[in-house]
């Protein structure tokens, strides 16, 4: 059984094509176009993995992390930063919220992402 994945991404093309690939690979998927919509989806969809972009309108990724932490969920999702922003400062900022997975979006394809997510989930389950 593959985990529920919430993809929070403001770029329509990227969001749609990655969501499609994840669905085709068998992942239950929900999407959100910014951090605020992402928080709603966390409550409704209870994702096990959140793929989080950082630079988004309305509410960015860092504020999302801050509010998610404040929510104090019983089973908080595993957050993976999936962004084209890759500076040492943002890396440090996300680490402060306990997020250590930082995947640079431009290095990935939908295929590689689904493969790595599946591999990671199976390794964790084992």
């Amino acid at each position, binding site marked *: 059984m593959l985990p529920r994945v919430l993809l929070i991404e403001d770029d329509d093309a990227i969001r749609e094509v990655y969501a499609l690939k994840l669905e085709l690979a068998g992942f239950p998927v929900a999407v959100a176009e910014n951090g605020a919509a992402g928080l709603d989806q966390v409550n409704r969809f209870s994702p096990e993995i959140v793929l989080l972009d950082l630079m988004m309108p309305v509410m960015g990724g860092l504020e999302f992390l801050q509010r998610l932490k404040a929510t104090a969920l019983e089973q908080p999702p595993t957050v993976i930063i999936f962004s084209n*922003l890759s*500076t040492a400062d943002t890396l440090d900022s996300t680490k402060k919220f306990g997020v250590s997975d930082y995947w640079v979006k431009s290095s990935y394809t939908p295929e590689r992402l689904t493969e790595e997510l599946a591999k990671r989930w199976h390794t964790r389950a084992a």
Partner: protein
Amino acid sequence: MSCRLRDDKSSCHNEGHELLPRELRQYTNRKIFIALGAIIIVALIATVTSLIALSALTVVRATGQANSATLSNLQDLLLQVRTAESYERGYLLGNNTTFLDRAHTAMAAARTDLANLSHNLPPNASPTYRADLARLASLTQAKLGLMNTIAQQNNTGAITVDLTEDQADMNAINAKVASLSNDQAALLATARANISGLDATARDISLATVFLTLILAGVVNYLYARAIQAERELDRAKDEFVSLASHQLRTPVTGIKAILSSLASGDFGPLEPRQAYFVDKALSSSEHELAVIEELLDVAKADAGRLMLHAGAVDLVQLVDDVVAEQRHTIEAKHLTVKLQQPDKPIALSADREKLHMAIGNLIDNARKYTPESGIITIKTHVKRKIAHVEISDTGIGIDPGDLDRIFDRFGRAATAPESHIDGTGLGLYLAHHIAELHRGTIEVTSRRGHGSRFTMTLPIGET
């Protein structure tokens, strides 16, 4: 105009007359130089003034000492004159010749004192003083002569000398010596007052110098703190720009690449062969564009001194194997032969794997680009004296000796490159060189036009 990266989106806005960090830094640096210049000028003025005051003090002290010695001699002279006068009066009253002898002895001593005074004149001796001494010497000499005459007449029993006139001469000598003593006492008092004044001036100069230096040092410290702050602002602005640029440049291509990748893998249904061919071409182009963007961003970071290493354990042998495996397809497509000569054991380094991968990849890719079909690329790795070596040799077009110095410069391509219609940004070697240096390593090249090139990267074992 300044840009700030916020959590959600970037924003740019005008800030009127506010200085940009670079301008602020230059402005502050100018002020620091001016303040430092002021400190140096104050110190010079204080030094010169102190030296002048010290010199004047030395002169005045010497004069004072001379005045003091002169006064002491004059007081001795006065004592001798008064002694002579007393004995002479005693002789005249009692007609005791012993008194006359003693008066003569005292007067002779007075003459010696006068000779000493004339010989040791103080530096500030006035012409009047000199004339008075001469007059006194003359009077003393006359007085001694008169005393001799009195003594002789006394022996014969008939004194014809006018003793009243003699007493008047003695009074005149006495008065003149007393007057000279008073003058010297006045001069000594003046010298002492001058010494005291100069002492106070020197103390005031020292205090003013210390005070001014402290104020200027405070100004320099404040300006230096501002310059440091401006430098940090500038660094932050550079970081923000690079991060903003990287995000904005990567995002559209990332979308294109994602869509093409999905198309290529059949997520939207099977593609016809011609469609698959062109989707593959488009995907390669998007990946190439992303690689160029990454290269440009790394150059921007390198220029800003912000290209950082994320060091970890790296096996150089495995890394070279990986790079060659990645590029083997494109190398063989050009009908080139790759000769890989690596040791059986790993070469363990502490290095940034991703950046080292890029640097070695750039060197091998250059060998591929600049070697005509059917050529040979030889890649060797070995360790010598705790230094790892990666040698990449080719049988390509080579580099003119005049170009060897500038091929590691930004956009510095060899003259043979454009002539051969070979694409390139001129940034690959610049970055490779920068990355090697960040690892405390080097890159060297030997080449001859028409006879290939050999690039050697050295990396210290166990260091970053």
